[in-house]
């Protein structure tokens, strides 16, 4: 017989991340394929989006993806931050922020998906030419933070290894799987928020939208874009691995090292085609 577990915030997050994770997998991989294997992010111009959204099916697809990715990401990030925000006031602030971010981005995204593009390439916001610069600046900032973060972490670890100093819990494969999973989830959520903002230009200023999207071709951003593909692939497979492990009820957890190697191999091999496409390779 099975007893009903008690409810708590952590129990809710745990269940929601799994249910939404399962539902989102197919959508995410179709999205990756369309945008990163068969095409380029910088080629997703207003004309491309307009043609795609002529089909109600694609609008429904994109809306489902937005709904699930946003709520999954916010629930995950909220649970992560709630573990470290200990004071009642900071916890309340966190709850309010999570709710506000979800409502704002879901509202904006839904409106954008439902709206038709204006005739011609100018829209009501077209005179605000600073918007593309701001969004591109945001992308460059995220990319810089990611590059500096990876280099700093690598240098810190390298120095400890060189001095034969203990490296904390990084001896354990589970630690790496966990840390990469979290970093990937948080990074993809951060990008999703910027991405909702840039797509929001489509109905309001198609010309500015095109200018923003063109920035994705900047060589400086390409490692980050490839990294995002890798992050999504890794996070998805690691999420599936966790759920499989939980479903199996066996001592599959002894498989930590082999599963970590499998995850890395899978992630690299599925991200390489996207990197090749980003670097200009065409089948």
């Amino acid at each position, binding site marked *: 017989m099975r*007893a009903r577990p008690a409810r708590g915030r952590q129990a809710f997050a745990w269940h929601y991340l799994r249910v939404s994770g399962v539902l989102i997998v197919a959508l995410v991989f179709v999205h990756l394929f369309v945008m990163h294997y068969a095409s380029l992010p910088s080629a997703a111009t207003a004309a491309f989006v307009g043609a795609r959204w002529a089909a109600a099916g694609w609008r429904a697809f994109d809306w489902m993806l937005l709904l699930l990715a946003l709520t999954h990401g916010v629930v995950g990030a909220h649970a992560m931050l709630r573990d470290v925000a200990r004071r009642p006031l900071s916890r309340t602030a966190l709850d309010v922020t999570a709710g506000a971010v979800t409502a704002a981005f879901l509202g904006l995204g839904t409106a954008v998906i439902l709206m038709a593009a204006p005739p011609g390439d100018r829209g009501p916001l077209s005179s605000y030419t600073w918007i593309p610069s701001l969004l591109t600046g945001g992308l460059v900032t995220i990319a810089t933070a990611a590059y500096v973060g990876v280099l700093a972490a690598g240098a810190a670890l390298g120095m400890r290894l060189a001095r034969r100093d203990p490296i904390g819990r990084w001896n354990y494969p*589970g630690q790496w799987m966990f840390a990469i999973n979290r970093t990937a989830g948080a990074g993809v959520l951060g990008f999703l928020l910027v991405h909702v903002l840039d797509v929001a230009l489509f109905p309001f200023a198609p010309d500015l939208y095109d200018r923003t999207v063109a920035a994705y071709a900047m060589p400086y951003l390409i490692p980050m874009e490839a990294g995002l593909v890798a992050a999504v692939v890794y996070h998805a497979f690691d999420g599936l691995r966790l759920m499989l492990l939980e479903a199996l*009820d066996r*001592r599959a957890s002894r498989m930590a090292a082999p599963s970590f190697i499998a995850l890395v191999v899978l992630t690299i091999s599925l991200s390489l085609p996207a990197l090749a496409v980003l670097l200009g390779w065409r089948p």
Partner: protein
Amino acid sequence: MPAGRTVSIRVRRFDPAAGGRRLWQAYDVDAGPMMSVLDALFWVLENEDPTLAFRYSCRAGMCGSCAMVINGREGLACARRLERLRAPVTVEPLRSLPVIKDLLVDLRPFFEKYRAVDPFYIGQAASVFDPASEPAVLPRGDAAREIVDRQIDCIACGACYSACPIVSIVPEFLGPAALNRAYTVAADARDAAGVERLHRVTADGGVFACHSVGNCVTVCPVGVDPLLSIQLLRKGAVHR
């Protein structure tokens, strides 16, 4: 002791009386054959520094007193042989627990959480006091019993608690050892504590705080799989 080779070990020292700074101290130990890390610590105690503090009892890998972090991995000092370790061998106290002195940690937070799950068998009052009651019958090959038999081997050394990153992030997380213990008693067909204990371990700070990192499984010196117990509790896969 037969003349052996010299093995250098680096010990993370901490003395609250001497300013409370944590620093590394290196010793060159005369390592005999089959010498354990615990033996090396005794060598230091006898030959170099009588103030070195560490905990031990059985010296045979059974009591769990000597758990510490050896070359970055949690383990029992009496069960890790020097010759199998890469030198210099680093020895640190368990993580996530207050250090009292050197390698000696205060295990109170660990055992307080252990106690919080009612880590003992609670039977029905009638079956204990009523001489006419029938003893419980456990069917042969009972699947839950098989798991319980394995998981009950825990020696409460604290290695898993130290290796778990969630313990260090979430102060109220009960940790792998306590949750493993909770499963072994909750899955007992005769258990009468039931729903109450189950509610405690599935509330915040319980099994749903765990992210299945699995370091606990990697380090357990007696082959217990605390993550499996946590997974079974998450599913409510216990008798009720």
